[in-house]
């Protein structure tokens, strides 16, 4: 049985090899020239004012965290979707409860206006 997986092994070695070798090759082939001016962040051609670590609006952070939250929810659905038939009816109900719970959270966010992006 295990020897059936040899082609898969070779394939993954080739892929990994290609990725690592190109990265190393370009690292050595490409000339490098570092200077203080070059490593400053690009400000459309003028020298930057202030550093990039300044606080930014909370809207960005909220949107990012909410996306991560609902993405994790979708990840839980993958195993369910794969063996949808075998889990049958009770699996459907369990998943349904899980989705309802997360949906409640989503509705709270909508009403609270966390996703209101284009209003002041």
């Amino acid at each position: 049985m295990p020897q059936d997986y040899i082609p898969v092994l070779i394939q993954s070695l080739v892929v990994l090899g290609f990725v690592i070798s190109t990265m190393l090759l370009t690292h050595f082939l490409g000339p490098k020239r570092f200077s203080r001016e070059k490593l400053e962040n690009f400000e459309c051609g003028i020298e930057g004012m202030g550093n990039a670590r300044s606080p930014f609006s909370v809207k960005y952070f909220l949107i990012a965290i909410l996306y991560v939250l609902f993405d994790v929810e979708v990840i839980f659905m993958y195993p369910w979707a794969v063996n949808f038939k075998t889990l049958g009816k009770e699996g459907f109900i369990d998943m349904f409860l899980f989705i309802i719970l997360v949906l409640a959270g989503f509705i709270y966010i909508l009403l609270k206006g966390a996703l209101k992006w284009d209003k002041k």
Partner: protein
Amino acid sequence: MAKGQHTEYWDKDVVSSVEHKEYNTLNVGPTHPATHGVFQNVMLMDGEFIVETEQTIGYIHRAFEKIAEHRPFYQITPLTDRLNYCSAPLNNMGWHMTVEKLLGIETPKRVDYLRIVVMELARIADHLVCNSVIGVDSGALTGFTYLFQDREFIYEIYEEICGSRLTTNMGRIGGFERNFSANAWEKIRYFLKSFPVKLKEFEKLLARNRIFMDRTINVGPFSADRALAYGFTGPNLRACGVDYDVRVMNPYCSYEDFDFIIPVGQSGDTYDRFMVRQEEMWQSLRIIQQALDKLDKITDKDTYFAKDPRFVLPPKEKVYNNMEALIWHFKIVMGETDIPAGEVYHCIEAANGELGFYLVSDGGRTPSRLHFRRPCFIYYQAYPEMVIGNMLSDAVLTMSSMNVIAGELDA
């Protein structure tokens, strides 16, 4: 918080930033795809919203007005077509008409109609670039690549008339340097047949497109009286609802024999500016068609300059074997023609607005002062007022719909 009297900290709207210390400055700088040229906007941003913006221009300031004081009159024409380089013949014709007004040269009807055909072609070319770039800035790149094909065809017509594509230096003071070739007339007629189909297609692509309408309707709106106070002219003013068009208000170059409508918008937002330019292209096509019919009716087909030969080079074979013709040719080329002292302000309806030339001459070889009234330079001041409070992506669209051309901005 209408309901509760005093608001605890946690009861505030979760989204609004509390102490406003999250302002960060964003530099939409000289080399930025959003600014179609080289000018800089340092914007104070609260998240996506613009709180303040401060402009810096002059990154390609070439001192046109200083150069104009050191050049004889007909050598200033190459300067003018580097003002608004998207529609160069318009500026050339404007400059020629200013000097004709100073010298009191009356151009025959045929020259006026030839000039009108060229000016309206240039207006179409400029609106083509502006409208397709509004599409590019809101994400619709196909319009740009398709419409540039027609702009290439207008370049071909320019090459037939004056030999160069973009910086045309077309015509002379008092008329043209040569008659239009038969090939030019065929290309113009072919253009009048083939371009409306493409323009209709482009209009169908964007005008009623859900995404485009949401992205442009009431984005950067501007009221009519603020527009007049800020010196708006041209399509941007007409989009605000004021029907001021120099071709109608003080007609020049016998524009009064043509009938065309002036499209006027209501709220002065990006969508109105787009539609006003779109409608003006249709009107320009109508004007060219009328000009062609009027030109066919004129019997003598070979007058292409005014009767006043002060700026017209004698034909070459006369210059080679006739003393006076040689002297006259030399006088014109060296700029020794006699120019009366006086001052004149002449303005034309360029693609961006009222392009004015204030020419002061003290009878010498070169103008003693020449001031260009550059529409871009004047209406770009209102950009902060149109943009503050909106979002950054709307600010980009407002800037591209105002069609600010760097060459004309800091001449």
